[in-house]
């Protein structure tokens, strides 16, 4: 995809929206390569270094929980001396609240946190920054993610990606978990951001400062990790296999691998003129 073009405002001032995955099931499992406390200390040092790079830089932290999402920290509220304390306190309050919202249904494996929610909130905040006038920092989003991709969030995440692409906001991804995240690969590719899965997560701070710390204007002078063959093939709705060629229902755009007589999503009979049926309330 084409790299992000810079607009006509302050060149190297950035607004960094950090989305931190706080899924307790992930952090307590073996899939997490380092304990949450070590992860958090490296991320906090990174945030401090961003704010040191330029006086006008701004950082917002949003926590992506298992059952909810919330704003954790806003650097424009001042408080340089108590920065770490305020952040940690709000984070702890959030995690406690998130756990209280736990329903008692069993989740297999490490579950998936609500990435679509925090992405939507970040984009709303960025729109507010755009509305504030012509002199504002260049916004970008950094997702620190470890949980699995939740297939139920596909449509919402794609909507966020297209909206970010239209507003020219790159989405960078730093994947901590054991598997690659197809959603974040697509997000970074389409919006012109950087996707990275650190090979040695113990040195996370080093990856963060060398890859994700530079502002958008200076990225054109650096050799950042390039996107490696993002797979844009679709999966069929019936078996969830990735397919090369498939059949698309012309009414609801569901993808099938074999020819069917009737669409299982919208109920249209193929090859015959339909009767006027309004689709029932359904999400894939």
């Amino acid at each position, binding site marked *: 995809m084409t790299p992000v073009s810079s607009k006509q405002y302050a060149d190297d001032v950035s607004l960094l929206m950090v989305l931190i995955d706080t899924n307790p099931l992930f952090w307590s499992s073996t899939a997490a390569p380092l304990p949450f406390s070590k992860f958090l200390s490296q991320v906090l040092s990174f945030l401090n270094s961003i704010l040191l790079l330029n006086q006008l830089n701004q950082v917002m932290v949003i926590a992506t929980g*298992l*059952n*909810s*999402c919330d*704003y954790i920290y*806003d650097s424009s509220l001042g408080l340089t001396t108590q920065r770490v304390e305020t952040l940690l306190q709000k984070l702890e309050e959030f995690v406690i609240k998130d756990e209280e*919202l736990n*329903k008692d249904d069993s989740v297999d494996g490490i579950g*998936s946190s*609500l990435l*679509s*929610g925090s992405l*939507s*909130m970040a*984009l*709303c*905040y960025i*729109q*507010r920054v755009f509305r504030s006038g012509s002199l504002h920092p260049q916004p970008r989003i950094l997702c620190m993610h470890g949980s699995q991709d939740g*297939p*139920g*969030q*596909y*449509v*919402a995440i*794609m*909507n*966020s*990606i*297209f909206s970010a692409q*239209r507003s020219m906001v790159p989405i960078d991804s730093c994947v901590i978990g054991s598997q690659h995240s197809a959603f974040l690969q697509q997000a970074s590719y389409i919006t012109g951001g950087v996707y990275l899965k650190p090979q040695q997560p113990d040195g996370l701070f080093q990856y963060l400062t060398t890859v994700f710390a530079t502002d958008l204007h200076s990225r054109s002078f650096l050799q950042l990790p390039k996107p490696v063959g*993002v797979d*844009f*093939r*679709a999966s069929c709705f019936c078996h969830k296999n990735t*397919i*090369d*060629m498939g*059949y*698309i*229902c*012309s*009414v*609801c*755009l569901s*993808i099938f691998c074999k*020819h069917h007589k009737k669409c299982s999503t*919208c109920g*249209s*009979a*193929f*090859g015959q*003129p*339909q*009767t*006027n049926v*309004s*689709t*029932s309330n359904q*999400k894939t």
Partner: protein
Amino acid sequence: MSNNGKRKPMNGEDDDDEEDDEENERDLEAWEKAYADERSWESLQEDESGLLRPIDNQALHHAQYRRRLRSLSSASATSRIQKGLIRYLYLVLDLSRAAGEMDLRPSRMVVVAKQVEAFIREFFDQNPLSQIGLVAIKDGVAQCLTDLGGSPESHIKALMGKLGCSGEASLQNALELVHEQLDQIPSYGHREVIILYSALSTCDPGDVMETIQKCKKSKIRCSVIGLSAELYICKYLCQETGGLYSVALDEAHLKDLILEHAPPPPAIAEFAIANLIKMGFPQRAAEGVISICSCHKEAKFGGGYICPRCKARVCELPTECSICGLTLVSSPHLARSYHHLFPVTPFDDVAPMLLPNQHRRPKSCFGCQQSLLNPGNMPIRCVTCPKCKQFFCLDCDIYIHESLHNCPGCESLKDSKSVD
């Protein structure tokens, strides 16, 4: 300034005077420019008590948006209406003598061309699987500027190259041409025509009513955007075929009217037969490979996509493979249309004075954290999502419904998620 018509060219003195007058005309004082060029009185408005206030653009924008949303939601109720997602749209531009009128600066034709360019880009952004064709009416005949195709650049290039107006406008010829072309498209596609009509008459070789009935029978949905005045024949055409007729008041209104046609219209079920369309999802070709690309017919280095059926190389998606005819798309292209199928519920207005529940009202918008209270601690207008009950400011409301298509509150709630 003196009336130049009365001046008689005599000797050198008069010529000097003429020159002086012209220079004065060019060198208007700043206060004169405010009347001649800027029209500062137009940005004032009278409020209820008769006092003059400057126009508050933001409040107007919000009010207009909420009004439009209310009218839309009352029309469609709560059921999900099927929309025609695979559209074959013909844009008919009137390039007759009337298009040279200068009531829209610099001329109607130029303004229309600019808005059509913006429309084409927006259309392919919202409907990546659809195709557009351009038709121009000039000198009483209709000619195809471009055939139905999916690449915005080729249409815009063809449009900008052929801008010249003359002759009469003929509605019947345009409809006949479009009807002939749209007969050839597959049965699952939705057939649409948008006519941008500047003339006040139509010069037809036969009975235009017959042509209109033919279009109605072929299930072509015709909409007209008028640039001069309302015409009965256009109104009749739109009523018969189920399209929209509107007349633009000025350039900004024209832009709104054209862009209204960009999102897919509600589909009338009998108009298109549901069918399974075979499509391919090509993978990106390996970097560093040299191959001959089938769209430009020249050797290209690296990049591109490989058709899964015939293994030909194509440069960009979405496209039709020129060797085997398979429609090639990638999953984001399909995903771009999903928000039409799963729209965000319109948010409800919140009454400014909710006295018993005043303490329960949050202090900031859930999406952007903007304060929902004025400096004097008075609550400002906000909206709430009927599903997740979170509060949002009006700007977030507009952004969520027009661009994002996700409610941040609903997405941040575990309950509304359904994991496959």
